[in-house]
């Protein structure tokens, strides 16, 4: 988006930018309040959670749970959950599923999106229709379960990856992007004798980095955040991803015992500290990739919204 509004304005009244008058003082104050409150509502809970996870056990116990301003920093809770018990294990599972899943998803989505962007090729219209129609319905829990079961994927980490590896929406997004690539480049490369695979890898992929970044983020976040598929498909608790551990020990409040963490129960910090630390650990990866991909959001979303 090209910003046209920051043109130099001559000082004086009334200030008008692109035909719109500048807001008056009342409107500014109201908007300021609304936005400040909205941002506070998002930020404050996290401040509380992070503070509590870092606060000393004594302070947490004394506060009866939540600490806003820690008097001292204590990393005990983090040391415990990284001691090699159930949380560490789940973290690795989540990292594995998310990285492998995102790679597979990107591969399948871009190849399919590229193929569907090649109008006129045999079968492309039919396949595009298949993809678009699938956007209109969702097979439901039970039929999906039956398919996973029939394929023998139950209790396999693949069950957390393959069923959700291709999102029709993302395929449409990627395709729309490919369709809008300049024809001349592709045509001249074809005349130079480039194969379809070369067109895809040398022209399609390099030019579509921004959209791949956004689609990759969507997939990655999807894999990282999924918990219900694991509840359904994974009866082996040693293969639980982090979100399911989070549900069990934070949302349901199951006591995270010494056994779970592979440490002596007597050394446990307060349950709240542990819960908050798990919560922080599950949010941090999202926070890490978020700033790098953020600037591509609008572009990615818009490509998808305008269906071609």
């Amino acid at each position, binding site marked *: *988006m090209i910003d046209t509004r920051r043109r130099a304005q001559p000082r004086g009244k009334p200030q008008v930018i692109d*035909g*719109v*008058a500048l*807001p008056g003082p009342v409107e500014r104050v109201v908007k300021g309040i609304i936005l400040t409150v*909205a*941002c506070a*509502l*998002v*930020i404050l*809970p996290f401040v*509380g959670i992070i503070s509590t996870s870092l606060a000393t056990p004594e302070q947490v116990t004394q*506060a009866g749970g*939540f600490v*806003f301003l820690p008097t001292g920093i204590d990393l005990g809770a983090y040391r415990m959950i990284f001691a090699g018990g159930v949380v560490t294990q789940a973290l690795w599972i989540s990292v594995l599923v998310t990285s492998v899943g995102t790679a597979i998803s990107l591969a399948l*989505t871009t190849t*399919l999106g590229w193929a*569907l962007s090649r109008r006129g090729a*045999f079968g492309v219209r039919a396949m595009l229709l*298949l993809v*678009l129609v699938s956007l*209109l*319905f969702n*097979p*439901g*829990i*039970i*039929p*999906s379960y*039956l*398919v996973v079961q029939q*394929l023998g994927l139950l209790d396999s980490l693949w069950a957390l990856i393959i069923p959700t590896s*291709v999102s029709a929406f993302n395929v449409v997004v990627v395709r729309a992007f490919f369709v809008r690539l300049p024809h001349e480049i592709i045509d001249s490369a074809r005349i130079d004798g480039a194969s*379809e*695979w070369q067109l*895809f890898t040398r022209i399609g992929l390099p030019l579509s980095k921004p959209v791949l970044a956004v689609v990759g*983020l969507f997939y990655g*976040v999807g894999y990282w*955040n999924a*918990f*219900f598929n694991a509840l*359904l498909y994974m009866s082996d608790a040693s293969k639980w991803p982090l*979100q399911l551990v*989070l*549900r069990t020990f*934070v*949302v*349901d409040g199951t006591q995270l015992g010494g056994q779970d963490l592979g440490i002596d129960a007597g050394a446990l910090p307060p349950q709240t500290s542990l*819960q*908050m630390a798990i919560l922080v650990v599950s949010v941090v990866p*999202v*926070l890490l990739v*978020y*700033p790098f991909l*953020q600037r591509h*959001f*609008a572009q990615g*979303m*818009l490509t998808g*919204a305008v269906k071609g």
Partner: protein
Amino acid sequence: MRDRAILLLALPGIAVIIVFQYLALGGNVIAFQDYQPYLGMGRSLWVGLENFAILFSGDPAFLGALRNTLVITLLQTVLVFPAPIVLALILHSLVSNRVRQLVQSVLYLPHFLSWVIVVAVFQQVLGGAGLLNNFLRARGWEAVGIIGNSDVFYALITSQVMWKDTGWATILFLAVLAGIDKSLYEASAVDGASRWRQTWHITLPGMRPIIIMLLILKLGDSLSVGFEQLILQQQAVGLGVSEVLDTYVYNQGVIGGYWGVAAAVGLVKGVLGLVLVLVANRVAHAFGEEGVYRA
């Protein structure tokens, strides 16, 4: 030759869609069976339309789930849907780009958090011994029961959805706002139109197509409300207020063993959702709008 290469590229992706979307639909045949998982589809008895009787028999569990679904959808359409429009208007009218980007960065974030995290955060903040109530009690004030209180459950889940997705939903609206022809504003300014008149006569009409498109999509989704969000919180408030069609299918089918009945409800729900989208799209066309697609 080239066509074959293109087909090969498409193959893995399209195979996943065919298997997990279209073949999965085949699983709906158990809606016509007294399906017993230990017998499998092959050996379970066929019962015709018997499972669909639940839709008309006045079964209280089913009717409750239907009612809750519709109430929650209505609440979300009336309260949640307009929020990002308002927020987008505010963000769009900000003069400082830096402030706007900062606010956007903060408000988009919750969209990327899982429901497990969102529910956990709400519990920690609003729970009986959470942040808010600890604060109230420390000042000697009355604590408020929010989590686990079925009276305010709808308010709770509605605010969760708003918290999570309002910011993110502004993206589309902001893009549309940025695309509105600037000359319209300039022309109206010459005519002496105020900011409010411009909003009413130029901005909102400019957003109408996207609003209608999203409303249609919402309508198609009206029978599906936050499965993960609700399944995480059902235990706290009971099924009376929290059972919706999707959770009903899970609770009756997978947990309760009434696979056939649950599949029947899920099937009808899916078909109704499809019909709703098609009908709403037709209505949009009738009013001269673009809608979601044009056949």
